[in-house]
C-alpha cells in the first residue's frame, strides 16, 4: 500500500513537472528541509536533479543524509511543486527566507540611487556598486534576468550571479561566464558588466541574441573573488588571491584559479601559502571555488560553454594547463579559438594568441577552465584581456570600451558557434515535436485520473 502511494506520488510530481504548470512569477524562497530517513534523503536528492533548485547547505547532494539540515533555494514558480512533493513524502520543512530577492535588496544600501540609463561602463566600479547594478539590472529586466546567490566568500559576503534568458519551466542549455576570480584584474568584472549590458540592449532588436536567450541561459558571475576585489580597492591594488587564512600559515590568500579539482597542485602551483599561486590546503578548500563547483556540478549536463575572464596578456587559453593532458576535442577548441581571435583582431587590430597554457604561457593546474572541461563541458576558455604588459593590470579606463568591444566580438563568435552546434534547425524541430507528443501523453494520463 505504502509503496504504491510513494510511486504514484513520484508520478504526480513527474507529471506536474512535465506539463509545465506554472504558479506565476514569485520571489525565490529558501526552505529548510529535514530528511528523517534514507527514503526521504533520496527523495530530496532526486528533487535536486529534476527541479531548478539551488543547494545552500550541505555542499553537495551526496552529503544529504538522514538528520542533515538541508537549505534549498527554490524559484517562486516551482515552490508549489516542491511543497506538494515534500508534503507527500511527509518530509519536515519550513520557510527560512521568504523572499531572497528582497533580502538581497535590503543588504545593499542606496539601491535606488543607481540609474541604469546613465551608468558608466567605461570606469571601474567597486564591489558594492557592482552589486547595486546587478539588482537594478534584475529589476529592470524581470522578463529575462534573475538574480541568484552562488554562495559566500571566506568573509561571508554574498556572491551573486545573473541568470539571463527567456523564462522556461524546462532546464535549458547554459553558457557560463565568471569574472573577477583574480582581484587585481579589474578589466575582468568591467567586461562582465559590459557583456550583460550588450545582451540586454540588443536582445529585443537583434535576432541572433533573441534566439540565444530563447534557447539558452547565460549565467554571469561579475565578481567571484569579492573579498580580494575589495582588498585591491582598499589596501593592495595588486592583490591576486582570496583572503582566506589557515592555521599555521604565514600569509593570507589562496589562488582561486589553482584551487579547482583538476590535477590539483601538480604543476604551476605552489604549496607555499605566501606564494601568488598557492593552491590552498586541499582542492576546493575555498568557499568561492566550492560555490562555482557545486552549481556547475549540478548543472554540468546542460552547460555547453564555460568562459572565465582574466587579464592581462591578450590570450585565448584552452584546456589543459598540464603539459601531459590533452582535451579530446583539442582541434575543435583550437579552431574555434583561432576564429575568435580573428574576430577580435577585426575590431581594433589587437592580436590575441590562442592555445593551451602549457604551450603558450606556462604550466598550471587546478584552474576553473581545466576543471570545467574535466566535468565534460565541451567548450571551456580562459580569456586574458588587454594589454600585453605596457600597463598590465593597471589598464587605463580610456581602454575599457575598446577592450570590451573586441572581447565581446570574440565571445559572441564562440557563443554563435556553440549555439549552432546544439540548435541547428533540425534539432529545434525534433525537440518541438517531442514536447508536443509529451504534453499530449501527460494530458491523457491526467484525464484518465489514474492517481
Amino acid at each position, binding site marked *: 500500500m505504502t509503496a504504491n502511494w510513494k510511486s504514484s506520488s513520484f508520478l504526480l510530481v513527474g507529471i506536474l513537472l512535465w506539463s509545465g504548470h506554472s504558479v506565476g512569477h514569485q520571489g525565490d524562497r529558501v526552505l529548510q528541509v529535514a530528511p528523517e530517513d534514507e527514503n526521504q534523503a533520496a527523495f530530496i536528492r532526486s528533487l535536486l536533479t529534476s527541479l531548478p533548485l539551488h543547494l545552500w547547505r550541505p555542499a553537495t547532494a551526496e552529503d544529504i543524509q538522514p538528520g542533515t539540515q538541508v537549505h534549498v533555494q527554490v524559484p517562486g514558480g516551482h515552490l508549489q511543486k516542491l511543497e506538494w512533493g515534500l508534503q507527500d513524502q511527509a518530509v519536515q520543512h519550513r520557510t527560512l527566507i521568504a523572499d531572497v530577492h528582497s533580502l538581497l535588496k535590503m543588504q545593499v544600501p542606496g539601491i535606488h540611487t543607481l540609474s541604469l540609463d546613465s551608468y558608466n561602463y567605461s*570606469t*571601474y566600479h567597486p564591489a558594492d556598486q557592482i552589486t547595486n547594478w546587478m539588482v537594478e539590472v534584475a529589476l529592470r529586466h524581470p522578463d529575462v534576468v534573475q538574480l541568484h546567490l552562488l554562495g559566500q566568500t571566506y568573509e561571508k559576503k554574498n556572491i551573486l550571479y545573473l541568470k539571463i534568458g527567456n523564462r522556461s519551466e524546462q532546464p535549458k542549455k547554459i553558457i557560463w561566464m565568471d569574472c573577477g576570480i583574480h582581484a587585481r584584474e*579589474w578589466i575582468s568584472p568591467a567586461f562582465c558588466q559590459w557583456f550583460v549590458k550588450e545582451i540586454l540592449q540588443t536582445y529585443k532588436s537583434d535576432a541572433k541574441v533573441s534566439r540565444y536567450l530563447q534557447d539558452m541561459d547565460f549565467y554571469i558571475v561579475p565578481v567571484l573573488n569579492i573579498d580580494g576585489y575589495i582588498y*585591491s*580597492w*582598499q*589596501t*593592495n*591594488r*595588486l592583490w*591576486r588571491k582570496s583572503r582566506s587564512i589557515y592555521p599555521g600559515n604565514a600569509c593570507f590568500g589562496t*589562488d582561486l584559479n589553482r584551487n579547482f579539482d583538476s590535477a590539483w597542485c601538480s604543476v604551476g602551483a605552489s604549496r607555499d601559502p605566501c*606564494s*601568488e*599561486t598557492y593552491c590552498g590546503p586541499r582542492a576546493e578548500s575555498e568557499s568561492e571555488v566550492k560555490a562555482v563547483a557545486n552549481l556547475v556540478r549540478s548543472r554540468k549536463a546542460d552547460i555547453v560553454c564555460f568562459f572565465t575572464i582574466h587579464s592581462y*596578456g591578450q590570450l585565448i587559453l584552452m584546456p589543459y594547463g598540464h603539459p601531459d593532458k590533452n582535451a579530446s576535442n583539442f582541434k575543435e577548441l583550437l579552431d574555434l579559438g583561432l576564429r575568435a581571435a580573428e574576430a577580435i583582431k577585426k575590431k581594433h*587590430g589587437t*592580436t590575441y*594568441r*590562442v*592555445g593551451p597554457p602549457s*604551450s*603558450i*604561457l*606556462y604550466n598550471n593546474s587546478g584552474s576553473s577552465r581545466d576543471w570545467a572541461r574535466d566535468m565534460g563541458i565541451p567548450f571551456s576558455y580562459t580569456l586574458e584581456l588587454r594589454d600585453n*604588459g*605596457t*600597463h*598590465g*593590470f*593597471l*589598464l*587605463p*579606463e580610456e*581602454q575599457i570600451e575598446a577592450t570590451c568591444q573586441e572581447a565581446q566580438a570574440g565571445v559572441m563568435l564562440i557563443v554563435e558557434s556553440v549555439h549552432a552546434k546544439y540548435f541547428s534547425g533540425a534539432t529545434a524541430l525534433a525537440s518541438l515535436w517531442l514536447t508536443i507528443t509529451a504534453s499530449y501523453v501527460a494530458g491523457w494520463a491526467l484525464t484518465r485520473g489514474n492517481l
Partner: protein
Amino acid sequence: MKELNPSYYETTRAAQVALHYTNYQHASLFSHFSYGTVKSCSLEELPGVGNKYHLVFTEDKTSSEDVMGIHTAQILFSHTETRTAPQVNCTYNDTAKANTADDEHAFYERMRKQGKLVDGKYIPDGHGNIPAEMKPFWLLGRIASSYVMWQESSESTLYNMATVLSFQQLRPEDDFLDFEYVVLLHDMVSQEITQWSMHVRWNPTQGVKVLNYARDPRNIPFPGTAKATMSPASLS
C-alpha cells in the same frame, strides 16, 4: 638548431628579454621599442654554456611616429652556477628617435629651470591613470625598469613594469638629471610582484643609465584608490 613555434612561451620569454635590452640600450625618453609578431624562432642548445634563441620579428605595420622596431635578436641564457644576465644582440630601426629629439631637449631644459626638485607617486595609479604632466617620468621609469628586467630575466620569467610607486629627483651634480625610483615589477610566470629601487640618471644626449638597483623591502601601500600625484603639480 631547433625550430620553435613563434606562439609558444619559450619564444615570448626570449623576445621579452630582447625588448627590455633594446629599450634600455637604445630607446630615448619619448621613443620606445615595440615588437610586432615573432616570425620565426630557433633554439641553439650550447652544452656547457646555455641556450641561445634566434628571433626574427615581422614589421609592425601599425607603427606610430614614436615607436621603433626590433628586426632580429639573439638572446643567450647562460646555464652557469651563478646567475648572469642574458646576453643580447639585435638589429633594429631607431629612426623614430629623430622625431622626438626636440621634445626631449625641451623637457630637459624645463627640468633644469625648476626651482624645486620634482617628485611624484603612483604612475599609473590604481585606475591606470597617467596624467599628461607625469608621463615623462613614467617613460623614464619604464626605461630604467627595462634594465632591471633585462638583468633579472631567465627562461623562467616574463617581466613587465606594473607601476612607478614613487620617484624623487636628486640634487643635480653635472649635466644629468638624477632620480631615485621605486617601481613594482610583475613576473607573469610566477605571478609575483616585486619592489625595486633604482638610481637613475638621464640626459637627452647620453640616454638613460641605471647606476645601481636593489630589491626594496619597504612596505609602501598601493591601494586601488591611490591617485597619481606630483610635486610641483606641473612643471613651470
